[in-house]
């Protein structure tokens, strides 16, 4: 009997060792699987309904006859030893708060009271998070990127708070060309330059536990979000409004430069850098419309054959007029003396300007020269209507030099007369007069120029 017993014992022992236990779990704890027909897999969802957890199991083979099959979990439970699953459309679920979340549990498939197959599982190692939701994409023009945000219910949970999210996006026309990015936060920035311009994109996200203790599987994908990228994708492209402004500014500057070049000599330069008047030219301008056969010259020798009346000091206009009208007005000497003694200024005399008074002269000019020679001609403002005729002047009477009005700074004593005026008819001896003229002209040439320039300014 003893050897027989030993033999039977060994047989039973070998049978038990060979048979082993069934089991394949999704977390890969077991390599062998007994009763492959009833192999199943489970996943847990913590705090899916308030503080209640959900455990879902299903047969790997959907065609298995699950009639009268039940699932049961034992161990790692609060307050109870075992709990039974509820069957719903081919899946077995249990919703409870009584998961201890520490240690392994045993899940068995039962047919009646008989356990067909069992698996040892740890609830915290088969966690499947809930799918993210509310995914949004906002284009930020200033930053040239897209801000992707989404929400997850695990942010408000007590246990599985830390998740790893996977964002997948693709261009809609490229069906299987998905781009993937992992992140731990719920916000992501997609650079515009990495996307095609003016294209439709699809984006979605899913999650997986990312803690030291809880492990599990990827959640379901979130609902997809579709967005279109803007047309222009060139960072160097300018704003059209800015471009127009730049072009207009360029053309305005170019136009101003052209105008400046064109008007430089005539308009701009005289204002910026006025030129000193050239006295000869000034006088020539005064005689802009010379009559025919008139030669303007300041050469004293040109006046040698002219009767020139020397003007002594400043003469008033009235005296000049009177002198023109009357050959030798007797009161002229008195008025002249009074004037010379009393000063130069009269009521009609401009105090600030130096120039020739056009009203001083009437009628014909008393300054007559030989035909073709004239010193003061038809200048604008001057009373000379025609060129003087020296020959006529010599016959009709004394000639009158133009009246020169001096400025307020000059006095009769300081200013040597250009042509010293002598009362009475003056008949010039051409030779003597010419010499004296030359002398006086030579000494007072500077004063003449100064005076003439002043006259020009007055004009």
């Amino acid at each position, binding site marked *: 009997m003893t050897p027989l017993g030993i033999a039977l014992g060994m047989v039973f022992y070998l049978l038990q060792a060979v048979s082993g236990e069934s089991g394949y779990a999704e977390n890969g704890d077991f390599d062998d699987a007994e009763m492959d027909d009833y192999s199943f897999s489970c996943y847990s969802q913590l705090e899916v309904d308030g503080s209640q957890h959900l455990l879902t199991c299903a047969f790997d083979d959907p065609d298995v006859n699950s009639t009268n099959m039940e699932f049961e979990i034992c161990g790692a439970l*609060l307050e*109870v030893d075992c709990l039974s699953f509820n069957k719903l459309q081919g899946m077995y679920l249990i919703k409870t708060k009584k998961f*201890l979340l520490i240690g392994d549990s045993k899940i068995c498939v039962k047919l009646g009271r008989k356990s067909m197959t069992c698996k040892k599982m740890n609830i915290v190692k088969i966690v499947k998070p809930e799918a993210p939701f509310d995914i949004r994409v906002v284009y930020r023009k200033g930053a040239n990127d897209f801000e992707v945000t989404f929400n997850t219910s695990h942010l408000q949970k007590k*246990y599985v708070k830390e998740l790893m999210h996977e964002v997948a996006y693709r261009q809609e026309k490229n069906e299987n060309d998905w781009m993937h990015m992992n992140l731990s936060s719920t916000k992501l920035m997609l650079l515009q330059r990495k996307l095609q311009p003016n294209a439709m994109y699809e984006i979605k996200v899913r999650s997986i536990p990312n*803690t*030291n*203790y809880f492990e599990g599987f990827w959640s379901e994908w979130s609902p997809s979000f579709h967005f279109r990228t803007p047309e222009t994708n060139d960072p160097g492209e300018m704003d059209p409004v800015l471009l127009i402004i730049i072009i207009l500014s360029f053309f305005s500057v170019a136009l101003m430069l052209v105008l400046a070049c064109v008007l430089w000599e005539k308009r701009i330069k005289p204002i910026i850098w006025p030129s000193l008047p050239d006295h000869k030219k000034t006088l020539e301008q005064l005689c802009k419309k010379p009559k025919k056969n008139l030669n303007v010259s300041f050469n004293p020798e040109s006046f040698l054959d002219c009767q020139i009346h020397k003007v002594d000091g400043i003469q008033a206009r009235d005296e000049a007029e009177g002198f023109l009208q009357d050959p030798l007005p007797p009161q002229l000497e008195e008025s002249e003396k009074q004037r010379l003694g009393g000063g130069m200024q009269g009521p009609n005399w401009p105090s600030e300007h130096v120039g020739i008074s056009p009203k001083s002269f009437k009628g014909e000019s008393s300054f007559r020269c030989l035909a073709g020679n004239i010193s003061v001609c038809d200048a604008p403002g001057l009373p000379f209507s025609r060129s003087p005729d020296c020959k006529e002047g010599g016959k009709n009477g004394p000639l009158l030099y133009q009246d020169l009005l001096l400025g307020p700074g000059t006095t009769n004593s300081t200013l040597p007369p250009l042509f010293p005026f002598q009362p009475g008819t003056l008949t010039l001896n051409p030779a003597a007069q010419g010499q004296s003229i030359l002398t006086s002209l030579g000494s007072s040439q500077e004063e003449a120029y100064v005076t003439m320039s002043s006259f020009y300014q007055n004009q």
Partner: protein
Amino acid sequence: GFPIFFRKIFILQLVELVLTYNFTDCDFKNIKDIYQDVIHPELNVYINGVSEETFLKCIFIPDCLIKIEHFTFKPIYGCASLAKETFAKQTNATLSLGCSGYSGIQINNTQTMKKRRKREVKTDKCLEQVSYLIELWRRFSRIS
């Protein structure tokens, strides 16, 4: 007389010392992970934002676990039912799982489900105990 009395007390203390688990042979990292992801949220739910300043400290890691076990499972005057709370059961399971040779505290898990649940009364003493536990666990998490 007195010498005999003191001798008995001394012997009892020796026995207690021998029988008390020293928590030196434990997987401290595993215990720390369970505390951070499971026990800590439960403690916060229990204390519900009430924080009390404590001066309870532990120097060494085993010392922390000894004191955690003491304040979790040892009933005291004014707080006798702390051992039946969820975090206490999780602590018991954690220490049993992470420390070889630790048998744990025998807590009666099977209870008759009543139609009307008798709500546990959170006494001030119990809140004080939980504050101690939070500080001890925090200290343990830092030094482990």
